[in-house]
Structure formats: C-alpha cells, structure tokens
C-alpha cells in the first residue's frame, strides 16, 4: 500500500477518508486536520494563550505536540490525582516531564490534589461514600482545577485531547438514553458562561483514536500505555468497541454519525436550547454553582 501523496510505503490507511499516507504525510495531515478544526469551530486565535490539560496519555501529549508545532502558545497543566496511591500518577507525570524536557522545557504546571486539598481523588471519594463513583468525583475535581488555573493564569481556553471516538461514544450513550440536556451541550467548543468558567475546546475532534495513537507512535512520543485502573470496564470503552465494529462494516460510520449530529444541532433540528440556569458564585472559591451556597467541589472537602 502506497502513500497517496508521494508513493512511498504507507504507514496508515484511513478507510473513512480512502486515504493511505506515509509517515511524513500522515504527520502533515494530522496538523492540517487539527488546524482546520481550530479554525472551523473558532476555538482560539494564533496569539491566545492556551492551557492544554495533559494526562501523560497519547491524546493529550499528541495534542500538545501538534499545538506547539502549529506555533500556538500552548502550556500544560497536569493534575496529580493520586491514582493507585500515587504510583500511576507518578508514572504518568514522568511522561509529561520527559515530553516537556525534550521540547526545551516548555512550560507546564502541576496541581497535586492530595498536597493541595489533603486527600487524593479515591480517598475523598471513599470518605464521601462515593468510592463506586470515583470517575465522577475525578471529573468534578479536574473541572474545578482546570477552571481555576485557567482563570488565575489568564488563559483564553482549556484544550483537551478528546478525539472523535471519545465524542461519538458519549454521543451514542446520550442518544440511547435520549439525554437531551447532555446532547444540547455536546460540542467541540464549550463557551465560557461565567468569568470563572473557562472556554473548553477539543481540537482533535475530527481525528479517530487510531490516528492520535498513530501520531504518537510516529512522532516518538512516549506515553502512559496502561489504562487508568479506575476506568477498566468503563461503559465508554464498551461503546467504543461497538462503534468500531460498526466502522469495520461501514467505514466512515463514526465520522458521519458525529458530523451529522453537529450539523443537525447547528441547524436547530434536534433540540431547543435549554433554559439557562441561574448561576450563583460559590462563597469559598468563587466558581459558579447552580444553587446558593458552596459549590459541589467545595462541599466535597467539607467534613
């Protein structure tokens, strides 16, 4: 199989695009796809300071690499969650540190949840009898910290490494349960609805997970390979597999599902905008909350 652009051996065949590419042209293609998504969805401008949420995984490190290569002012944020009593987190932080060092010490900061707030994610989840919901507690903590760091650091937005498979798996779950509120909010860009809530953008939203993994391999980006131990058996992984079976039979099914959804959403064919909730400022952290009093994050740390 030859590269469509130069005839050299292809390293990847993207059946949904009927496109096989060699290493060099695949790397170029990923950059171009990312740049197009940033422009198409008006994610951020060339001079904006962008905070990249990095986990040490292939998607976030590849995203950071692509944004730097495209010339954006992309700085990293690593949130140390204390997974596996710190062992998994230490390992994943190591990948982030090596990535930054190999690129001349690009700026990134670390927020250690246990050091900052007194307990790791699992410890606080267990203390609040939500050990079985560690992933939702983790999400709550990460969102709060990302918003805080973006606000304090004057970043225009937070970029996350969500790829098309991530988005389509969520879309499928929300569609099957007809969760119209979630469907109405699912977008490549989540606008800032409050000064303390950062704009969230997903520049890899048109790339299949296979492509972000291939990008990391071809670029020689070393990343954490083991799945987060708390995510093993997660429903999202099951949906990803189902969608990939569909993709095998019908190349482009995932892309088409997602883009058709976005088109319908843009045209207002599916949902009317939900009534915007009244927001109150949390008296402790200042971040918005839907009910008066402490926000869900601050309540988490109350005894």
């Amino acid at each position, binding site marked *: *199989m030859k590269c469509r652009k130069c005839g050299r*051996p*292809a*390293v*990847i*065949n993207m059946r949904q695009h009927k496109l*096989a590419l060699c*290493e060099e042209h695949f790397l170029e293609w990923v950059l171009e796809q990312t740049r197009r998504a940033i422009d198409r969805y008006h994610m951020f401008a060339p001079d904006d300071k962008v905070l990249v949420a990095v*986990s*040490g*995984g*292939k*998607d*976030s490190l590849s995203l950071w690499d692509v944004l730097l290569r495209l010339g954006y002012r992309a700085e990293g944020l690593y949130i140390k969650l204390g997974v596996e009593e710190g062992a998994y987190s230490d390992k*994943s932080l190591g990948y982030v540190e090596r990535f930054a060092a190999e690129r001349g010490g690009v700026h990134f900061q670390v927020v250690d949840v246990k050091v900052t707030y007194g307990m790791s994610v699992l410890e606080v989840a267990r203390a609040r009898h939500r050990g079985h919901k560690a992933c939702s507690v983790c999400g709550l903590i990460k969102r709060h910290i990302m918003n805080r760091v973006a606000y304090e650091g004057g970043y225009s937005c937070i970029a996350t*490494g969500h790829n098309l*498979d991530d988005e389509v798996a969520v879309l499928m779950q929300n569609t099957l349960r007809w969760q119209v509120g979630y469907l109405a909010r699912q977008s490549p860009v989540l606008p800032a609805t409050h000064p303390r809530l950062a704009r969230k953008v997903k520049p890899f939203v048109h790339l299949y*997970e*296979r492509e972000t*993994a*291939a990008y990391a*391999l*071809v670029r020689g980006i070393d*990343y*954490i*390979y*083991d*799945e*987060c131990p708390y995510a093993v058996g997660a429903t999202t*992984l099951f949906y*990803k*597999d189902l969608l*990939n079976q569909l*993709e*095998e039979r019908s190349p482009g099914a995932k892309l088409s599902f997602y883009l058709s959804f976005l088109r319908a959403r843009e045209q207002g064919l599916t949902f009317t905008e939900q009534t915007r909730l009244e927001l109150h400022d949390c008296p402790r952290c200042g971040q918005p909350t839907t009910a008066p009093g402490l926000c869900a994050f601050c309540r988490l740390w109350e005894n």
Partner: protein
Amino acid sequence: MVKLVYRQQEWEVKPGMTVRDAILKTGLKPYAVLPVRDGKLINEETILRDGDEIKLVAVVSGG
C-alpha cells in the same frame, strides 16, 4: 516464523500473510491495534517476512 507481541501475550504465525490476517489469527481485532515493526508503524496490508517481530500497540490506552 513471525512473532506477534501484544502486551504480555505472544503468538507465532507463518510468514507470507498480511499483517491484518495475522492479527485476525490471534483473535485480536485489527481496528483495536496498530502494528509496529522495528519501531516503525506499518500498514495492515504489509506482507510479513520470516523473522519479523511485530508489536501490536493497543489503540485505546491510558491517560
């Protein structure tokens, strides 16, 4: 023979078949792995040669 390695598992297949056919013989799903030979990504239609060692990298992973 050709050796295929995925995480802690190993298989041996005969040379002369495509990477995709070799992956199917292991029971893994071709869409779920990326084949790497000598540290380089290769496409699924590549014909395997005697002595090749192919590392199969899981598409879904960490982070």
